[in-house]
Every structure is written in structure tokens, then in C-alpha cells.
């Protein structure tokens, strides 16, 4: 399998706060990579760099060998990077279908073809029944689904999911996990940030652990939970033997 995303020595500070420091890792095509770490570790900041919302101070990010860092969110989306947001963002004056059409217009100029693409994605994401409801009337798990559907409508190669299962009931989270597996089955590579380990560990192929803006370690999910460095980052030194 070839490398889809390369993150090389990426650093980003906000004022005095170093959100990301010399972060490097690769993401293989077709995998689900977990990005984990305690609060404030720099996970969302890294997503912002990969999706083009912020330009790293140092280092670069490449998608399929082409530099995307610093090109801005529009170029990143066109290059094939889509994302969801930790705090849900929906177009509240529009219906669910219209929300998804905004994403579909990324690849389709004509409204008719964008509409057909939106139809396909709504079915895939299990939102067909809600298609003509105003976005603001959706329940929180439905809004999460809408964010994924909208992102998928841009026909991405890489999907960044920022805590999309957080705050859901076990049943809702289970349905979300199934959706993520379905997305991967379509050949889309996924990086996901999630705090709930019971949900995350069975789902991901590999994890990168961040702490205080740096890569602490990376590896298979089963190995990481036993790593003393990971345990101490999450729980404090007392718990690491």
C-alpha cells in the first residue's frame, strides 16, 4: 500500500503556545489512523494544518506527494482532503439535502449532477429520511452524520474526523462506527480523533499519540494501551509502572 499523506516536521505556535512541535508521520492509503492524546495535545490544531485552515510555521504536509500545507482550505478540499469539526458546524438556514449539495458542488458545476451526487451520499449516510428537514432541526447524532455526508460529497481521498463519536449514546456510537467502516470500504482513508478508547481501539489500524504538541509514540492500538508513556500522558506519572 502506498503512502497517501506525509506529515513532515510540522510545527505551529499560537502566540506563546506551541500547539504542534516537529510532528512527523505517514498515513497509508486505505487505513484508519487514530490520532489520540489528552486535551490540548494538539490534535485539532494538526487537523487544521492538514485541512489547510492554518499554515504550519515549519515543515510540510503532502498528499499523494504533492504539497498541500499552506495552500488554504479550498485547495486542500479540491486536492481531496475533507473534514468534520469538533464543534458541529452546519448551514442552519438550509435543509439537509442543501447542506450536502454545497459539498457536492466541489466537483460538480451543474446543479443537476450535484443533486444526483447529494442523493447518493444521503442514502449512503443514512440521511435519506431527513433529507428535506432544516439542518437546525437535527438531533446531535444526525448532525454528526450530516457533517460526514457533506464531507463525503466532496469525493475526498482523506477524511479527518474530529471527535465525531463523542457525546453519543452507545447505540448511536455503534451506528457511527458502522458508518466509518462503510466509508473506509469505499476506499477513503481516515484519520480520526477520539477520546473514547473502547470505541476507537477496535476500529483503527494504527494510532499516533500526541502529547503537549509532540508525537509521543505511534503503533498498533493493542501495544499502545500498555505503553507506560501513554498511560502517564493520560493519567499522570503515578499510574505508569
Amino acid at each position, binding site marked *: 500500500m502506498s503512502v497517501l499523506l506525509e506529515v513532515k516536521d510540522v510545527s505551529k505556535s499560537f502566540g506563546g503556545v506551541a500547539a504542534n512541535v516537529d510532528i512527523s508521520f505517514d498515513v497509508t492509503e486505505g487505513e484508519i489512523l487514530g490520532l489520540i492524546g489528552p486535551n490540548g495535545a494538539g490534535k485539532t490544531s494538526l487537523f487544521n494544518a492538514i*485541512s489547510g*485552515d492554518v499554515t504550519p510555521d515549519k515543515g510540510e504536509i503532502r498528499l499523494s506527494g504533492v504539497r498541500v500545507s499552506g495552500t*488554504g*482550505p*479550498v485547495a486542500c*478540499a*479540491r486536492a481531496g482532503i*475533507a*473534514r468534520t*469539526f469538533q464543534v458541529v*458546524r*452546519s*448551514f*442552519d*438556514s*438550509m*435543509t439537509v*439535502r*442543501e*447542506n450536502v*449539495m*454545497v*459539498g457536492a*458542488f*466541489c466537483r460538480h*458545476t451543474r*446543479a*443537476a449532477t*450535484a*443533486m*444526483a451526487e447529494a*442523493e447518493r451520499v444521503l442514502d449512503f449516510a443514512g440521511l435519506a429520511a431527513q*433529507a*428535506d428537514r*432544516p439542518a437546525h432541526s437535527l438531533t446531535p447524532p444526525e448532525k454528526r452524520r450530516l457533517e460526514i455526508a*457533506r*464531507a463525503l*460529497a*466532496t469525493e475526498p481521498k482523506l477524511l479527518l474526523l474530529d471527535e465525531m463519536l463523542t457525546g453519543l449514546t452507545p447505540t448511536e456510537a455503534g451506528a457511527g462506527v458502522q458508518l466509518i467502516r462503510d466509508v473506509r470500504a469505499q476506499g477513503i482513508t481516515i484519520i480520526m480523533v477520539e477520546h473514547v478508547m473502547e470505541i476507537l481501539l477496535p476500529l483503527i489500524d494504527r494510532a499516533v499519540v500526541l502529547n503537549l504538541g509532540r508525537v509521543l509514540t505511534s503503533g498498533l492500538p493493542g501495544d499502545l494501551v500498555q505503553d507506560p508513556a501513554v498511560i502517564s500522558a493520560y493519567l499522570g506519572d503515578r499510574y505508569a509502572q
Partner: protein
Amino acid sequence: MTNAITRRRRLELVVGAVVLAILAVLPLPIRDVYTQNLIILTILYAGLAQAWNILGGYCGQISLGHGLYFGIGAYVSTMLFVDAGISPLLGMFAAGAIASLVALLVGWPCFRLSGHYYAIATVVVGEIGHLLFLNWDFVGAATGLYVPFHGQSWMNLQFRTSKLPFHYLALVFAAATWIVAWVLEGSRWGYSWRAMRDDVIAARSLAVRVFPSKMAASAISGFFTGLGGAIFAQYVGYIDPDSVMAANISILIALPAVLGGVGTLWGPLIGAAILIPTSELTRSYLGGAGGVDLMIYGALIVGVALLRPAGLVSLLGARR
């Protein structure tokens, strides 16, 4: 494909055609010149408000300087007619094009400002234009310009014996702005505008190009506002900076959409149908003294903001 969106859009076209038909026969039984004039102005402002709505409603960029584009449109076609003998039928498209260009020049710096700052900047730009024209001899300064009567014809866009031609000209103008808004609403631009108005960060993440989209909205909006200004100039036969460029023109262009419902197809029409007769009636009965019309606008806006923030169109149970 049929779904809720295509069905709604088809229904809008049917309702639009019915409204157009009603407005086409409306003036026929009316003999009273005052009422005829009121209807013409209302239809003209419905078109202007729709033009404003493309930028201020769909795109969410509240402009309080559209009087500038209106005035420039009025001056361009008038000067082309008076000084170069160019038919206003052609001149009004030149008027639209130049107003559109000016709208782009205003948008270039101002779209870098967000929200209220953009609105304030447009007030300032509009007022600068007004002052410039008041002192610019080439355009007649404060004296303004008369449109001399060259004979009654469509070529000259001058009619003395009947107001009907202007009724239909205003109607074609308003219908054109409505159709353009309808087309844009269903297009990529329409979706981009509404998305970035709701959440600009999410819109960007879906490849919406914010700045170019705003510039496009501004150019289209400015074009039709300038066109409306040219029609108005031919209709009244005399223009000066106070009558076509002052701040109250900007308000009168923006207010119908705000009252009726911004970013909707029917809002500007409903708003103009209420606001323009109200404005004209208070002006003729109270002589515009003491700014009574402004007080009535203020009361209307406060009332709508408190009771129906989505505009009067939401009373019809319409979407959004």
C-alpha cells in the same frame, strides 16, 4: 430527478408567472395618474430590492451603499443620452456595466471586513460618492441634470401621454431581477453564498471560494441596481445627487428585502409592496416633514425584528 428542491422551484416559477400576469393587467383599469405612479415606483423598487437581495440576502453582505450604484446608473445613461445621443435602451446596459464595475471596486477592499464593519464601510463609501457628485461640475454638481425631451418613443425612452410604457419597463426589469435571483438560487453560486453566510469556516472546508463568490454577488447586484437607476432617471426626467445618490436611497433599496425577508425570492416583493406605498403616502400627506417617513420605517423594522426576524415572508409558512 424530482425531489423537494425541484418541486419547490417549479412551484416558484408558477407563482412567479401568476404574479407577473396580475401585474401586467393591473394598470389597465387605473386612470388615476397618482396611483399609476405609485405602482410603477413599487415595481421598480421590487426589482431594486431583489438586486440588493442577491448581495445582502443570499450572500449575507449587508450593503447600505447601494444608492451609489443606483446613482451611477442614473448618471451614466443620462449623460450618454444627453451628451452623446445614445438611446437609453442601450445606455442602461452601459449604466449597469459601470455600476457593476464600481461595485467590484468597492467590494475589493470592503469584503476584507466582516459583518457590521462591512455594512459601515458601505455607508461611508456611499456618502463619499454622494459628496463627490455634489461637487463635480462635469456631472452638473448640485444642480443635477435635466433629460431634455427628444420626442415620445421607445428609442428615447420618453413618454408623455401615458405611463403604461414605464409600467411595463419597470415590470420587465423587476421580472428580470426575479428570474436572475431564481436561477442563482439554484446554482453553485447560490449554494456557496448561503453556505458562507451561515458558516464561513465550514463553507471553506467544502471548497467554497469566499472572496470570489462575494465579488460575483456584488457585480451582479451592482449591475441590476445601476440598470434600475437608469430606468428611474428616464422616468423622472431630472436627477441630482440628493435624489438618486443620498443615503436614504440606499436605505430604501435595502429595506424592502429586510422587511419582507432577506435571502428569499418573495421577500423583496412583499417588502416593496408595503414600504414604497407607505413611503410615498406619508410623503404626500405629511410633506416628508420632520422625517415622519423615516420614523415609520424605523417602527416597521423594529416591529419585524421583534416579531418576525425572518421577515414577513415567514408569515406565508415559506421555507427559511
